[in-house]
């Protein structure tokens, strides 16, 4: 079971409220889709500068595995106020701890309402369903 202290997007990003900000990362499922368990296949991650505004569903960065580039989509709208400085240089750390040290950006949201996203149970069902 994935952590229940956050919400999930169908595009496999998670959003976790932290005070008046929201932390954003990607799920273990997304990582496994990219590299099929071989985290050495993750080769590059491009994250934005702090200060940028994003809309919900907008691309905020990209992650590259040996064979694919995937867009990272923001689950919420707001201002990116902090970027995890270690992720771009240490993708293996992000892959090993996607729920904690692997957070990617911190957003000051236009709204802290995350009800448009899935809870952990719904996300489990989402990834278990062929689509």
């Amino acid at each position, binding site marked *: 079971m994935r952590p229940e202290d956050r919400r999930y997007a*169908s*595009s496999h990003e998670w959003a976790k409220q932290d005070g008046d900000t929201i932390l954003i990362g990607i799920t273990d499922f997304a990582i*496994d889709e990219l*590299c099929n368990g071989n985290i050495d296949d993750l080769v590059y991650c491009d994250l934005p500068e702090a200060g940028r505004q994003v809309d919900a569903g907008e691309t905020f960065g990209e992650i590259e595995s040996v*064979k*694919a*580039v995937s867009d990272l*989509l923001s689950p919420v709208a707001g201002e990116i106020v902090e970027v995890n400085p270690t992720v771009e240089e240490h993708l293996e750390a992000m892959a090993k701890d996607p729920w904690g040290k692997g957070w990617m950006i911190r957003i000051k949201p236009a709204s802290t309402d995350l009800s448009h996203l899935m809870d952990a149970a719904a996300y489990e069902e989402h990834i278990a369903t*062929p689509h």
Partner: protein
Amino acid sequence: MSAWRLITTWGASPEFNMGLDEALLLQGEQPTVRLYTWAPDTLSLGWFQRLDEVPGADRASRRVRRLTGGGAIHHQHELTFSLTAPVGLAPYDGTVPESYERVHAAIVKALAAVGLDARLRGDDPLTSDAEATGMCFHHSTPLDIAWGGAKGVGSAQRRRGGRVLHHGSIKLGTTSLEGPIATFEAASQQVTPVEFGPHLLRGFEQELGLELRPGVPSPAERACAEQLGARYTTESWVAQR
């Protein structure tokens, strides 16, 4: 079987080729297989590559930056294909490596039909591997297709918003930038893109369960492709990294 559209364009401009692939990724109205070639010859950088990582880039007539990852490809003497469809539709109903395995199984079958004994590289080293050229065909992974001890097919994907664009380049002959890689010519096979295309399509149909129907881009897709494609050869786009 799932119905896919087939769009074939021989000798199209780099702006058209890249613009149409992006339009199909963003708003393709049907799952689509494209077969195409380029005129003039064009070097495509991988999405994250810097231009100065490809020392021979100036030797190609034109330069673009692809949406897909990986290394640079000199699009000359080759058949290029793309497969654009939503995640969840075969071959995109598993992980990225699984989708490669399925697409590459189809290509290996097509190559066998013209007498090439191609297989996945696996753990075998390749004579085409080379340092510091930035070229896709000089870097290999276990899932890459090889024959004669060298790499002969380049592949890369872009995944955006629940949709996938898979690019592939199958080498019929080599180029001044790519040197001694695996090609049809190196295996003493003189086959043109037009002649090899039907073999590749049969491989996709048989291995991926596709039912291909010839078609063309819709007016909306074409308009989107023209708008998006114009930027692909601009200096700001090519040198953005």
